[in-house]
């Protein structure tokens, strides 16, 4: 099939960007969206033009490296699918497709379709872990974990950190990402000792980065390629409120010092 692509081109973080149109011919419906971009890049290179920079790695929907707003939708038209798993059979001959980077204040554009998502790592640094060190763990079966809890933890842990939730959110909020980690660890006994502290710290970091606030639009859940539920956000809010209450008590008691 033949298509027209309108692609966001931007030479660097400080450069001004604009849309550039590329006619694309002879695309097979079996190709993935990124393979289609590979073909375009091969042609651009042969013509002496700069190929389009876009992030990708695993190309099987798990690393979270690929992104792209496709016709205004994070990861394109197919539900629960990353851009790398989107195939051209989702489009029709003659379509014109607009391709943009994630748009969010906290994700500055580096070049063309690549953005900087390191804010996510900093949110995890704030508390998205269990503070144990290597070598002192008890036997794996020492604590039985009810299957529903393990399953619920896994549902939330499936987040691939791609940032589609932020890109889809009218406020540019990172709530779904942050809540997914808080829910994952909060559902497990191993996550309990730091549960409230984790929520407080991760939320505080999220606010420090330039993400917007959550007003429960729900766009994040619809855009999430792993179908992480917005219920995780309710859980995060609960843990946060609890945490805030406890922290006041703790500081009134003078802490451990």
């Amino acid at each position, binding site marked *: 099939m033949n298509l027209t692509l309108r692609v966001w081109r931007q030479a660097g973080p400080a450069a001004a960007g604009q849309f550039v149109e590329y006619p694309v011919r002879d695309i097979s419906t079996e190709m993935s969206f990124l393979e289609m971009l590979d073909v375009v890049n091969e042609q651009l290179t042969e013509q002496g033009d700069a190929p389009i920079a876009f992030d990708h790695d695993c190309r099987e929907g798990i690393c*979270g490296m690929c992104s792209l707003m496709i016709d205004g939708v994070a990861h394109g038209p197919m539900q629960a699918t990353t851009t790398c798993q989107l*195939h051209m059979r989702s489009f029709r001959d003659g379509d014109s497709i607009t391709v943009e980077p994630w748009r969010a204040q906290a994700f500055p554009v580096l070049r063309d379709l690549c953005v900087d*998502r390191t804010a996510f790592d900093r949110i995890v640094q704030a508390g998205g872990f269990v503070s144990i060190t*290597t070598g002192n763990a008890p036997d*794996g*079966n020492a604590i039985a974990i009810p299957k529903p809890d393990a399953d619920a933890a896994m549902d939330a842990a499936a987040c691939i950190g791609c940032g589609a939730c932020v890109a889809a959110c009218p406020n540019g909020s990172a709530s779904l990402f942050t809540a997914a980690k808080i829910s994952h660890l909060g559902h497990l006994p*191993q996550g309990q000792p730091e549960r409230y502290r984790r929520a407080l710290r991760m939320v505080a970091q999220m606010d420090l980065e330039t993400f917007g606030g959550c007003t429960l639009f729900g766009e994040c859940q619809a855009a999430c390629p792993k179908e992480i539920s917005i219920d995780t956000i309710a859980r995060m809010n609960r843990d946060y409120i609890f945490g805030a209450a406890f922290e006041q008590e703790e500081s009134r008691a003078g802490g451990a010092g």
Partner: protein
Amino acid sequence: MDLISNIPSGPIDKKWESHKFDMKLVNPANKRKYHVLVVGSGLAGASAAATMSELGYQVSCFCFQDSPRRAHSIAAQGGINAAKNYQNDGDSVQRLFYDTVKGGDFRAREANVYRLAEISVNIIDQCVAQGVPFAREYGGLLANRSFGGAQVSRTFYARGQTGQQLLLGAYQALEKEIAKGGVRMYTRTEMLDLIVVDGQARGIVTRNLVSGAMETHLADAVVLATGGYGNVFYLSTNARGSNTTAIWRAYKRGAAFGNPCYTQIHPTCIPQSGDYQSKLTLMSESLRNDGRVWVPQSPGEKRPPHQIPEAERDYYLERKYPSFGNLSPRDIASRAAKEACDSGRGVGPGGLGVYLDFRDAINRVGRDKIEERYGNLFQMYQRITDEDPYAVPMRIYPAVHYTMGGLWVDYNLMSTIPGLHVLGEANFSDHGANRLGASALMQGLADGYFVIPYTIGHYLASRKFAPVAPDHPEVRATERAVEERLRRLVGIPGKRTVQSFHRELGKVMWDKCGMARDAEGLQRAVSQIQGLREEFWENVNVPGSGAELNQSLEQAGRVADFLELGELMCRDALHREESCGGHFRTEHQTADGEALRNDEQFTYVAAWEHAGDGQAPILNKEPLTFENVHLATRSYK
């Protein structure tokens, strides 16, 4: 070159224990004076960096992706082995050890494998404590499944996303240490060369992939955990960015390369659909627990699968290997699939596919159960092929998946360059000529969490480290070499894209150094690759400059290294006049087409030494001895 394996003396089950006692320690207050570079943030790198930082070392960690969480380990689906024997089905450290040595076709070092099996149990405990949501039974205890090459259920898993969950555990531990200030993380940063001063690995030269800036990092020791080099075949199940650059540069600086030709071709991948194809997708081997592999009895069969009666199907794995059946090891299952297709009985486009059929399993346990076990894999299959695997059998075909070869390391995971340690898929250890399913994750985490934290201390405590000046001649020379190479790459006034070279190299490798190899083909491949390499340096077209985010340049550097590595792989395959594991030389097979080893002449590790560009590499041999598992013909019949 001396290959000193440093295997501790004593009985096999006491070696690691006594070695841990014999190794020197760095006193806690002194640890922070040592600086270690860890290149790679996959399972091996992230676990190593986090653990060394916990111990108190200063660590810098590097990855080329935008976050350490995206390393290729994230894609592992099926599971991780451990000799827990929670299922009470006869597993033990001894059995995991035995299975791994046998699975590797007696081409791995016994002592390393035994240690791996011992440590396997600690890994599961560690990961559970980190909050890795492994699958559980209703009683709340950990669930297991079985995997190819084993007759016990020892594989732990987190749905079809085991690698993801293990990596997130290691990543979170790493982020915890970054927050504490113990690790400095460099993302979107690629190591382009190794700095060796006075014979010791003392640093690396990197390129910042966003700004293009070159940086030099000096330290007391370097750890490479940069993954496998399966992408030398262009099409593989590896992530697109997986590459050989770090270990190849180290090889050229003096690290021996062990068994480069040992490549694992995985039997269950989605067949290729066109020339534009950019990668092949694995369908986890765990599917073979419930799926039955078959092809039509008669060549050229045109009927759709459901119209082919039972009597006209050949369940060839069950027929040829009755005791392991569909769970035969990977090398055997792949070769059997190739044989079926070569005999004209392959299915799907080009006859390059076999069926993996869930009909019987769905009838037996119900669709729900199958969906619970493999839902995400079925969904992935459907998305890629537009076919419903609940209704029609999957079509699968072997694809390049894993490289058992890698930099040679001793028992301490140190290469032939003092101070340069190599972990995970990047080293050659543990898997011999064939890796068993669910053992790579185990090895990566064993190396990172439980081996290197001990052995690095021993290395650091055994030597004196004078600081290296930033303008030391070796440092300057390495920086200049990197700059020069980048300048050359962007300056070639060529016509062909990097990708077209990579694709062509991949085809040569797949045809001549893939599932079946022979002397004539390998010799031809060596000269074809040399020709292609020459053309590359005259006719490649790398747009843009080195001073910006330039993905073509990144790819060009990696492909240039693959063009050298490919030749070494063919040379290694050519010299090894036997068939073992994933290395199948058609000249060496039994009457019924099974691999025929030559233990007399080839029970050794081939460790290749760089002798200079344009020179034939030098072969060094580390003899292997089998004192605990007796050399025997591997049989799964």
